[in-house]
């Protein structure tokens, strides 16, 4: 899986309350989560997410298990999230929803083009040398390649 997009840099320990606040969770309309993503971090972010790669600090997605966080990013058109480490529930949620996530320490500037080759386990920013991502388990690769866990289960896996 090869992916690319300009980077949006995010700090360390971005919790799922920051990705989508509790006050927006109860709705029948999932576009609400897209519209209010990262509102308490930077209200201008939601409108700029489509086609980007989020390059975050360690422990991205900590806190609540709310799947709306991963869902908001996927539905907003985020190409992938790269961080040195992720909180485990968010990481599973992202893979289950088909949102590519890569654990890597990436030196990168805001807006720089980020390219990921998940099969090869490499990610690079601009013309800098590529860095290795921590490999996904075979299981997670299979889920991601299917486009998410629901798709995998519907195929009878």
């Amino acid at each position, binding site marked *: 899986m090869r992916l690319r997009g300009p980077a949006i840099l995010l700090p360390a320990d971005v919790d799922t309350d920051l990705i989508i606040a*509790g006050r927006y969770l109860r709705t029948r309309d999932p576009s609400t989560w897209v519209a209010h993503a990262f509102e308490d*971090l930077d209200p201008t972010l939601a409108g700029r997410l489509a086609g980007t790669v989020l390059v975050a600090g360690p422990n991205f997605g900590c806190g609540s298990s709310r799947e709306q966080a*991963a869902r908001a990013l996927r539905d907003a058109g985020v190409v992938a999230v790269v961080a040195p480490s992720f909180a485990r529930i968010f990481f599973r949620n992202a893979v289950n929803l088909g949102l590519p996530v890569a654990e890597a320490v990436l030196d990168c500037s805001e807006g720089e083009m980020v390219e990921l080759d998940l099969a090869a386990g490499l990610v690079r920013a601009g013309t800098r040398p590529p860095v290795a991502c921590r490999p996904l388990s075979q299981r997670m690769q299979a889920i991601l390649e299917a486009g998410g866990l629901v798709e995998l*289960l*519907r195929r009878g896996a």
Partner: protein
Amino acid sequence: MATLSERILDAPAGTCVDRKVDRAFVHDGTGVLTLGTFREIGRDLAYPDRISVLFDHLAPANTSVTADLQADLRRFAREHGLSFSDVGEGICHQLMGEGHVLPGELVIGADSHTCTLGAFGAFATGVGATDMAAIWATGETWLRVPETIRVELVGRLGGMAEPKDLALSYVGRLGMDGATYRALEFVGEGAQTLSIAGRMTCANLAIEAGAKAGLFYADEVTRRYLAGFGHNVSVQHPEEGEYAREMTIDLGGIEPVVALPGRVDTVRPVTEVEGTPVDQVFVGTCTNGRFEDLERLAALLQGKRVRVRTIVVPASRRTLLEAVRTGVAERLLEAGVTIGPPGCGPCLGTHLGVIGEGEVCLSTANRNFTNRMGVGGEVFLGSVATAAATALAGALTSPEGVP
């Protein structure tokens, strides 16, 4: 020779395993998403008798949208014969802990604080809605068996220190991602001095250090507690195992602490921030809403009156009933406390005590993230005794100095 997680999951740390889930539960928040995803998968429920649905997050409903979403989930739970707890019964983790989780079980909840149930010697961890929908459909889930951090507890808590102070202290030492992907095991003579309520408080905060689970070995305390619910369980004995890290905490050295607004791991002695004015005190949640907590609060407030609005939300109907029967509820009301219906209360910032811009709350909950309890508000996390002292003073106050 293995850690408790390795024994329960029956595989060495680092391996990925598929396991049948003994208990699976959702609440009204995650349950709605789970149901939607389960319908997309298009299969039948694999083991309806292992699934619980418990309404606690927005219970009773706060808006018509919430009410409609809950009505659909309620109907589904009843039609399929799931174990169902409606509004007013209490918090999912507390209710599961009232005799529905046994040592050695694999418990998966669609809520990050499912680790609370590690207090019973079960492997209990949180997942998101899609993983839970898959469990509804297959009865199984996959897990990577975690490496374990062994936390040896020695001595016993003294002065006004509580299990909550212990919990905040270990999160402060580990940091918000200090235990990511790992399990915490609380062992040693100090662990055995903690009540079930105290163990639940301690296990509850494991996720705040990123841990997948926080486990206590079932001992005589566990046996007696579960016997009260009609279960006859065996105790679990620690073995020599391979630990990723070992740390020792002297319970005698634990003092009343708070986590400063914004991060659960910015833990300081209460005395360092004493005098900070607060607008609200909140006692409740899956961390500190149990009878033991309410009883302690009532004892510390008895004959006095709180100086700031103080909200108490019992963790379950059983908790509230016990508070009523023992006079605890009466003492709280006489002290000027507001009692809300059993459930999560204002913890997640949606109802029953949301704070306003610029307001400060001392809360016994487990999260103080930016805007968590209300936009522009700040949350300090602390113990029940710190909550009592603070409510009486109207400002952050260490319980150690209160007569």
